[in-house]
């Protein structure tokens, strides 16, 4: 009996700790949308993707950047189901709005802000994160400092808007005040029954850092408007397509 009590006490203490650190149950507990990331639930505090926080994505190559944007688009499609709008801030944007329809997003619901410098992008992101009429803000930029990321964190604490900070080819992977750090890498696509051709997109999702959670690596694909979890043994095998020859 004593052991159970201890467990309860520890859990309670942990929740209190989380609350002190800004993770209030009231924030994340209420109608948390189902992102379809159940496979990585043990990684998150309270078992759900923290909303009302800034997530950092790091992409070393343009292929990774596309994959990360795809993953973010997958998250956004769940966030935007209640018809709220989203702001997409970027320097050197190459995102093609029509490509978002594959992820179940109505591209006209997103307002794109194309700025020239990282400084401007950060200013826009901070302003946007303060606006609680938005559901999420995505920013694609290069460098930012710890102090700058703190400002973003302060902005979301009041408004509870979710921010996605996508850093493309940063010079240094410096520590930021973000709740998590993700790296998304594309891996071989899946087709039903190992048919030839390009199948559904599959990504290696590496959660390098998560506050009050457990980092790890998972594999996810995007199929029929939802994430699907892929077993590691399936994902690592790069399938060679059947070569068909025609007369």
């Amino acid at each position, binding site marked *: 009996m004593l052991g159970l009590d201890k467990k309860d006490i520890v859990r309670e203490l942990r929740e209190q700790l989380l609350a002190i650190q800004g993770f209030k149950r009231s924030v994340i507990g209420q109608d948390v949308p189902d992102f379809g990331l159940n496979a990585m639930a043990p990684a998150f505090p309270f078992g759900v993707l923290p909303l009302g926080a800034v997530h950092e994505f790091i992409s070393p190559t343009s292929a990774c950047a596309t994959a990360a944007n795809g993953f973010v688009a997958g998250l956004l499609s769940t966030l935007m189901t209640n018809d709220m709008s989203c702001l997409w801030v970027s320097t050197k944007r190459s995102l093609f709005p*029509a490509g978002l329809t594959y992820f179940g997003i109505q591209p006209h619901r997103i307002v794109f802000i194309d700025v020239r410098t990282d400084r401007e992008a950060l200013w*826009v992101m901070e*302003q*946007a994160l303060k606006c609680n009429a938005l559901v999420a803000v995505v920013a694609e930029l290069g460098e930012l400092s710890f102090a700058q990321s703190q400002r973003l964190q302060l902005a979301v604490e009041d408004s509870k808007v979710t921010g996605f900070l996508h850093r493309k080819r940063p010079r240094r992977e410096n520590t930021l005040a973000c709740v998590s750090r993700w790296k998304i*890498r594309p891996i071989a696509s899946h087709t039903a029954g190992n048919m030839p051709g*390009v199948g559904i*997109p599959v990504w290696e999702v590496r959660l390098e850092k998560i506050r009050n959670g457990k980092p790890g690596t998972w594999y996810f694909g995007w199929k029929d408007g939802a994430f699907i979890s892929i077993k590691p043994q399936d994902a690592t095998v790069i399938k060679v397509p059947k070569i068909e020859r025609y007369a």
Partner: protein
Amino acid sequence: MPRRYLAIWLPYLATDRLIKIDPDLKDKPFVLAATEKGRMVIKASSPKAMQEGIAVGKVLADARAIMPALQEFDYEPEVLSSVLEALAEWCMRFSPIAAVDGTDGIILDVSGCPHLWGGEEPYLQAITARMAQGGYHIKAAIADTIGTAWAVARYSAEPAIVEIGKHSEALTVLPPEALRLESAVVQRMQKLGFRTIGQFMNMPKSTLRRRFGDSLIQRLGQALGSHPEILKPVCPIEPYLERLVCLEPICTATGIEIALRHLLEQLCKRLEQEGKGIRTAVFKGYRIDGNVQQISIGTSRASGSERHLFRLFELKIATIEPALGIELFVLEAPLVEELGDLQDKLWDTKGDQSKVAELLDNIAGKVGMQAIHRYLPAEQHWPERSIIETGSLDQMPATPWPQDKWRPLHLLEKPEPIDVMVPLPDYPPILFTHKGKVFNLTKADGPERIEQEWWAADGQPRDYYRVEDAKGARYWLFRAGHYADGDVQWFLHGFFA
């Protein structure tokens, strides 16, 4: 844009009004008379009475002698002028600038209005028909100048529309009284044998001035367009402008802020009463050394919120150089729009969307309006043309976003040429080289042929392939042109997630 004016003449205004009150009078001869120099003089005569030869200006007793059954009413000039003013206000449905002209006419500044009715002819017909429906006999004319329109409406049997630049020709055949001259001048002209304006139009001005006085030169100039003529609209269009004169020159940022707040408060109060909001606003400071400092803002949708507008201006106050001091502040809103319910159409789903608009205004103020983009689907297959930018936040897609074709998440602005190795024509490539790097491809889908829309552009069709390299990265490649035509060129156009 050339100015165009429309003159409306209501020859039977007084009698038409009486017939409207008492329809039984319609086919009866009657006159309106007033006392003048101790006798009753006819001031207005109904169409029926006119046919019998009872003209305006006759003494009532003479008219009675011609037609004993003639009915007679009092002539009330005050009532008529108020009727005319009401009519002019009603005419504002045709043009925003309407003015009363004398005792029996209305002048409209119709520049830029007739095209809404499909041209000047339907426009004029619409006005004539509506006036006739209301029971008023009118004659109307459109011309480049007020003077010509007035003259043609009253004295011409010709078509009532004077083409642009043809006003002097239209005037030549009209009698001198068509120039709105005093009766003494007209009499002198008749005495000298001037029957039409054309006879003296081209005479030296000094000669005309010596014989007929300045007024003729002025009236002739107004009809020909060389003299300015000002309309006095019944409902003047008041600019959205507020002024603040300072007792002492202002040279601090705090002082400027106070002035701005003060002006915004006044302007927003007025806008609120009219249900309007600001789209663009200019704040000017007149310095004592004669220099004018100004800052301007634009909003993405009409806003009447003082706080929001102030915040937009606040970002730019630092650029004002007060130097020795600013003695006059002016806040002007050149573009205002209705603050209708329409506004919340797109964004009213959830969340306070006016907040989004305010946020975007803030962003536009800092990084510029050109940074904000929103896209709608265009009904085109060519990838670059398949989306269309919209400047409005409220515009919804006319057609749903196409779902059937898989488009890349990243698209290069300009397709980049690549070298490929293709085992057989019409097969997908097995490797490609881009910027010196070799990508070995393991999987491929395609081709999806996209043709140039022949009505939009000429050029080669593209055969698109979706390919995946050994590392799992997915690309969108295309081949421009047909193998049969010789050289084909391959391009990298996008990345799939």
